[in-house]
């Protein structure tokens, strides 16, 4: 340690003993160690793969996939690339996660409030739901829903005919698909315009209440604008929208929009399962608002509905949102169980088929982990922002 001995006695030691210097040195050391370990791992893996003659790198994303996927939100065929298959799987996962989060939230809030109902039967039913559903493994429930759904639906030729030209059979739910005709752009513009108007109305009424204390019933007029304006334009433009109806041809229905039973079963399973947890979170949130708040609101003459809407729920939300975020993350991650029931989610398409056809396990698994990390972090960021908005602003 030539440096230590050749420097003036005490000066270097004094420098090294300054807390901020020591801290910085430790941080740099730790960082260097971590970077070295990461470098070593990557290098070692690449070296081993090379020695075993296993292909590596990300070139495979540009190669032709050669397999088909049963549901795709973007154009995809077996002549598309592995990179395209990546997006097909990702979008399918996003679809199921987004729909599942909405359904689970709605159902969870209803059940959570029902658990607090003064009606004995409603409260007990809600309790039974929560206790049964959240105590059974999700995979089991998915199998139950999938095969229960399949067993109860008729073959294509004996389809249930639903009103409006829709059909339901074991192959899925077939809905008429809207096909925009020339002139539909005007309707789209009208919808945009009415949304803007609604926002303006809401802002105006908020300002008015703020300044004068007078309330304006926003809901009715807003809905009127939202429905009436686009409808008027729609008919004025001569109904520029036609429907393409599903028809039975050969083995199955063709045309229209097809909703696979796999998607239905996965959505049912995921949202029913997650809703049971959300219900408990909602119940805890509502019970977490002190009773004095309700009593005070009633003393001010607010109705029961107003008490709930203006006093209890805003305060309960502050308790509900953080654990709710975890449930959303769980739902997104649990959607990877789709692979068991044949829904082409990200794990099924990418980590299943693509991994197997290319044999590039390291790259594919890394990308999969990256995707789920990104999805979860994005959800967290959004929910944290929402939480900050809802949190008590202390002055």
């Amino acid at each position, binding site marked *: *340690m030539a440096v*230590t001995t050749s420097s003036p006695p005490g000066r270097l*030691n004094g420098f*090294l*003993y300054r807390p901020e210097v*020591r801290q910085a*040195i430790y941080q740099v*050391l730790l960082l*260097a*160690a971590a970077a*070295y370990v990461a470098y*070593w791992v990557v*290098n*070692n893996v690449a*070296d*081993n*793969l090379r*020695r*075993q*003659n*296993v*292909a590596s790198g990300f070139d495979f994303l540009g190669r032709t996939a*050669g*397999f*088909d*996927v*049963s549901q795709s939100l973007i154009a995809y065929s*077996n*002549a598309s690339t592995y990179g395209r298959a990546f997006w097909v799987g990702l979008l399918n996962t996003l679809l199921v996660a987004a729909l599942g989060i909405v359904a689970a939230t709605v159902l969870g809030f209803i059940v959570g409030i029902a658990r607090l109902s003064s009606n004995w039967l409603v409260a007990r039913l809600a309790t039974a739901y929560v206790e049964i559903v959240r105590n059974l493994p999700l995979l089991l429930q998915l199998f139950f829903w999938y*095969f229960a759904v*399949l*067993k109860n639906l008729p*073959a294509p030729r004996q389809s249930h005919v639903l009103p409006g030209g829709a059909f339901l059979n*074991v*192959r899925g739910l077939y809905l008429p698909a809207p096909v925009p005709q020339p002139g539909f752009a005007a309707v789209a513009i009208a919808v945009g315009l009415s949304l803007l108007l609604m926002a303006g109305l809401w802002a105006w009424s908020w300002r008015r209440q703020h300044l004068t204390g007078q309330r304006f019933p926003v809901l009715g007029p807003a809905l009127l604008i939202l429905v009436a304006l686009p409808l008027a334009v729609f008919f004025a433009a001569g109904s520029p929208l036609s429907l393409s109806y599903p028809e039975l*041809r*050969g*083995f*199955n229905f*063709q045309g229209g929009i097809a909703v696979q*039973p*796999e998607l239905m079963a996965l959505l049912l399973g995921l949202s029913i399962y997650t809703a049971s947890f959300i219900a408990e979170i909602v119940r805890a949130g509502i019970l977490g608002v002190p009773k004095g708040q309700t009593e005070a609101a009633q003393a001010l003459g607010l109705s029961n509905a107003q008490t709930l809407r203006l006093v209890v729920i805003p305060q309960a939300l502050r308790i509900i949102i953080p654990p709710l975020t975890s449930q959303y993350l769980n739902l997104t991650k649990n959607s990877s169980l789709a*692979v*068991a*029931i*044949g829904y*082409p989610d990200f794990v*099924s*398409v990418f980590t*299943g*088929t693509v*991994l*197997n*056809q*290319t*044999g590039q*396990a390291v790259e594919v698994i890394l990308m999969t982990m990256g995707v789920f990390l990104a999805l979860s972090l994005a959800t967290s960021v959004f929910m944290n922002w929402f939480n900050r908005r809802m949190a008590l602003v202390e002055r």
Partner: protein
Amino acid sequence: MTHLARAVVWCAAALIAMPGVASAQQRTLDSVKQRGQLVCGVNVGLAGFSAQDDKGVWTGLDADYCRAIAAAVLGDGNKVRYVATTTKERFTALQSRELDVLARNTTWTLQRDSAQGLSFIGVNYYDGQGFIVKKSANVKSAKELAGATVCVQSGTTTELNLADFFRSNKLEYKTLVFEKSDEALKAYQADRCDSYTTDVSGLYSVRLQMAKPADHVVLPDIISKEPLGPAVRQDDGQWFTIVKWVHFALLNAEEAGVTKANVDQMLNSQVPDVRRLLGKEGDFGKGLGLDNDWAYRIIKHVGNYGEIFDRHVGPDSRLNIPRGRNALYTQGGLHYAPPIR
């Protein structure tokens, strides 16, 4: 030296001294002998190839290949640890040295032979992909499957052949991919799919598992070449040669008429081919790194290829698949082994 300075030195030393790439790996033959056990990757459950019977014993064509290798290398066909692998896991398990050999009705393709660090030692079953449909659908040929939904297991060449077949015949279809064949079959039985597709040998085995096998037909069309065979890692030439010649010994034994029952009498045979096979003449075992009785032990333990075939997939089994392309070349089949000399 101060505390901190010492810590710095230690960390630096540790970082520099950290080992680079792990040291050279042991040869597979040595590690199998040392372990006293062969680790063999097999199918989770496919009747005729590898499936556990009611006593937990693995039986089937592929399972007997594991036994044959263990008999040749370790002298005892029972010294095998079977590892059930899914289609997804199989290659990674072999690459990462968890398995010594993968005998799991796996199709030999260029991609797998070149880019996955594997070497297929040969073909122990010539298969092809087909379709099974319900009799009630009244379909006579795969070309009548336009618009059909087909259930398939993920991670197989099957998925690609399926797409190729429908694309080249310009037919519309839907595919439904399941991770396990069990669920794919359940979906097929629940009428979610019109057809289930896999290698024909698998279709026969699957048909037996159905509640009413007579209600399902295997279509005559074969849409692909599926040469199934055991695979080993590419980086061990000696091991590759051993496993390859275990396979050839089974075929040569059938050709020479050496069976499990007569192998002891055959030791006294004067036919040169038989004498070389059973180690009475020449030093062939030594070249493999084994002893000269290697092939004798294989036959003693599992019989020749024809016996294995008959026992598990042929006339003595419930599958009752005709020998067809899997007969020896002398009987009009494709199996042909280089001579032992």
